[in-house]
C-alpha cells in the first residue's frame, strides 16, 4: 500500500460528489433528490478539510461549519416545501410538479 496523499482524499470526495449528482438526476422521489444534494455537501466538506489539513490551516474547517449551516437551513426549508406539496397532490414524485402553477 502506498502512503496517503491529498489526492486520495480529493479522489474520494470527487467520487462521492459525482454519485450524488447522478442520484439527483436519476431519482424521482423529491426527498431522495434532496438527500442527494446533502451527499454533494458531504463530498465538498471532505475536500475542504483535506485542503485545510494539507496547508495546516483551520479555515477549511470553518468553511465546513458554514456548509453545515447552509445544509441545515436548506433541509428545513426543502422539507417544509415537500410537506406542503405532498399535502396538495399526495405524491412525492417530482414529475407531478413539472408544471408549476395553481393546482
Amino acid at each position, binding site marked *: 500500500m502506498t502512503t496517503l496523499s491529498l489526492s486520495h482524499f480529493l479522489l474520494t470526495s470527487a467520487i462521492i460528489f459525482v454519485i450524488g449528482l447522478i442520484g439527483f438526476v436519476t431519482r424521482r422521489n423529491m426527498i431522495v433528490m434532496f*438527500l442527494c444534494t446533502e451527499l454533494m455537501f458531504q463530498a465538498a466538506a471532505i475536500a475542504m478539510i483535506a485542503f485545510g489539513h494539507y*496547508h495546516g490551516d483551520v479555515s477549511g474547517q*470553518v468553511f465546513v461549519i458554514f456548509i453545515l449551516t447552509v445544509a441545515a437551513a436548506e433541509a428545513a426549508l426543502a422539507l417544509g416545501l415537500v410537506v406542503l406539496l405532498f399535502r396538495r397532490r399526495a405524491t412525492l414524485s417530482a414529475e407531478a410538479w413539472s408544471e408549476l402553477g395553481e393546482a
Partner: protein
Amino acid sequence: MPANVLYISCVLGAIAIYLLLRPRPAALKPVAVILGLGALGWVFRSSSLAAAVDRPNLFFYIFSLIAIASAVRMITHRKPVYAALYFVMVVLSSAALFLLLEAEFMAFAMIIVYAGAILITYLFVLMLAHQAPQPGEDESQPDYDVIPREPAAAVAVGFIMLALLTDTIFQGVPQMRPPPSPQQLQAESWQIVNLLPDRIERSARREIDGFESFANSDPSVRMVGDTAYIDVIMTGSPQVVTVEAPLSALPENVERVGLALVAEFPVSLELAGVILLMAMYGAVIFARRQSEISETAS
C-alpha cells in the same frame, strides 16, 4: 498516474452504476458490484503520488470504501427510508475520514448535526409522506421509486465530469505549493498561543515547578529557532528565568477552530446566524396551514 487508467476505470465505474440503477436484470447486479470495486481499487492502487500526508492508511481505505459503497447503495435503493439510513453511513464514515485529517471537532459536529438532526428531520418527513398499502395488495413501491429517470444519460454526464475532475486533481496536486513543515506549523501555533495569555499561564502553573509569575505583565512566547521560550519568575527568587514553554499550552483543534471563527470570520458567523433565522421563519410559514384572510373583514 497514467491518464488511461483513469479513463478506463471511469468507464467501468459508469457501467457498474448504470447496471445498479436499472431495476430489471437482477442477475447483473453482482457483476456490477465486482466491476465497480475493481475500478475503484485500480484507481486507488495506481494513484501512488508524492506523499504529502503520512497517515495510518488502512483506515482511510476502509472508511472511504464504506463511504463510496453506501453512497452508491443510497442512490440505488428503492426504499427512501433505507436511502436515508445509508446516508447516515456515509456521514459516519466521512466523519472517520475527518478524524484521519485531524479535524476532531468537525468529525463530531458532523455526526451530531447531520446524523443526529438533519437526517431525523428527513426520516420524519419520509414517514409522514408514507402511503399505506391498499388492502388486498402487498407492500408495493410507487412507480417513481422503482424506475430511475434517464439513467444512461445521467451516468454518462456524471462520469465524464468525474474523469474531468480526477484528471484535474492528478495534474494539479503535484503543482501545488508544498505543505508547511511540522516546525513551521508549530511556530504558527505558538503565534496563536500569544493571543491566549490565560491558557499559557494555566499550563505554566501546571507544568513548571515553583512557577510564581511571568516576568512581564503581558506573557508572550519568544521564538528562538524552532523552540519557544517564556520569561518567568520562580518562587523565592527575584531573578527572571527563561524556560522552555510547555507544549501543553499549544491550542487543540477545537480551540483553533473557535478562535478562527470569532477572530478571522466574525461577519460570516453573524451571516450564518441570519441565514438560520431566515430558514426558521421560512419553515414556520411553510408549515402553517393556509388560513383564509378575507379582505372585507375589518
